[in-house]
């Protein structure tokens, strides 16, 4: 908090108590679904799409689109929070849990780097993407995920700012040392917890 009063500023849409409780600091509630990305939207054919887990594990794992669809899926309802200040409540996703994708992996890795069509990357601590906290989602609101929202599949890590939920994700590289991704090397926070308002480096 902190800050000084700006003359004449008053709330025009103060959230109700329940909304306020669910909104991390500095966020506001939106009902639409803004699109943010740094470059053109990649379009990958499902016939060539695959998902892999590579890096610090004995044998890389790889699934084709059909194999991926055959994995056990979960449908989850989550609040999401974008560093550009909007939050959206009760978003419904279907996808494969990272617990499933990483099940039984023997690794010394501490982190992963998600890699994507278009070259985007983002880094996450392994401990924060297991235990039912992260998914590779391929539907939103019951329909196939639209390309501008990251389709055919995106990472979903709802407890962190949404740039960590990498669009167009194609795999996870397990790494033994943390390696900052795209926005994490361009001034944004390495960890990105919205409840601690970790927007930018140094926050």
């Amino acid at each position: 908090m902190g800050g000084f009063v700006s003359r004449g500023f008053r709330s025009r849409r103060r959230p109700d108590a329940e909304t306020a409780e669910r909104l991390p600091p500095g966020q506001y509630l939106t009902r639409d679904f803004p699109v943010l990305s740094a470059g053109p939207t990649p379009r990958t054919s499902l016939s060539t799409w695959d998902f892999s887990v590579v890096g610090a594990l004995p044998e890389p794992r790889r699934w084709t689109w059909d194999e991926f669809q055959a994995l056990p899926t979960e449908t989850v309802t989550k609040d999401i929070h974008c560093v550009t200040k909007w939050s959206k409540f009760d978003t419904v996703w279907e996808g494969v849990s990272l617990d499933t994708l990483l099940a039984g992996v023997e690794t010394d890795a501490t982190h992963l780097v998600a890699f994507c069509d278009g070259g985007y990357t983002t880094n996450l601590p392994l401990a924060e993407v297991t235990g039912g906290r992260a998914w590779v989602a391929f539907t939103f609101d019951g329909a196939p995920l639209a390309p501008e929202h990251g389709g055919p599949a995106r990472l979903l890590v709802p407890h962190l700012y949404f740039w960590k939920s990498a669009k167009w994700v194609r795999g996870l590289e397990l790494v033994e040392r943390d390696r900052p991704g795209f926005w994490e090397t361009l001034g944004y926070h390495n960890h990105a917890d919205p409840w601690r308002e970790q927007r930018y480096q140094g926050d």
Partner: protein
Amino acid sequence: MVELETAVVGQPRRLPWLAATVAAKIPETPEATTVLFDVPGWPGHRPGQHVDVRLTAEDGYQAQRSYSIASPPEASQLALTVQRLGDGEVSPYLTDEVRPGDLIELRGPIGGYFTWTVADGGPLLLVAGGSGVAPLMAMVRHRAAAGGGPPATLLYSSRSWDEIIFRDELAGLVVADDGLAVVHTLTRSQPPGWTGYGRRVDAAMLGEVFGPPTAGAVAYACGPTPLVERAATDLLALGYAPDRIRTERFGPSGG
């Protein structure tokens, strides 16, 4: 250029909230206003970057929003050009309520990808929709302040002639500079005798305005999502490399 300051221990310093004083307001269009700020302690910025604005009401309620910086690094005052969103709470405050002498909090600069300086080379291709012109205007103004630089072309989509932000300034810059071209398209209404484009940005228009890719070309598109998606997809189809097309969205959300 500006780097985030790094403290001795190697931990980056937190971007501090700064007290910004409203120095002037410039009406740009019926819906858009530029607010000029004096910001003691401002560390400088690169064209294309943005700031976070934080407002506090007397009862302690706070609201934050991000706004692109429209002024070039060479300017002494920081310019935010704000489109008024009817149901917003920060944009109407900035366009309607603030007056010179008022204080707001801001911090920045933020964003290290959607940026361009003359040192980055070109040709520079800019596609703007509505108030999405703001960060691109910082690039155009920086290029002019630097005395030219690589050729630059701005394709700017507005709903009508009266809604073109920076219209006269852009016209003046074009007259003064052979290396700068500005092409308008007016999507909803056109003035009598208008011979320019009168439709949404599409592949044919992008091809006519920008031509095929040349070495060094770099494109920046900023505006509403449909325009940015269209422009980025069509520039790819024209042969521009994906890593030379940078995008930023100004959605209807927020305010």
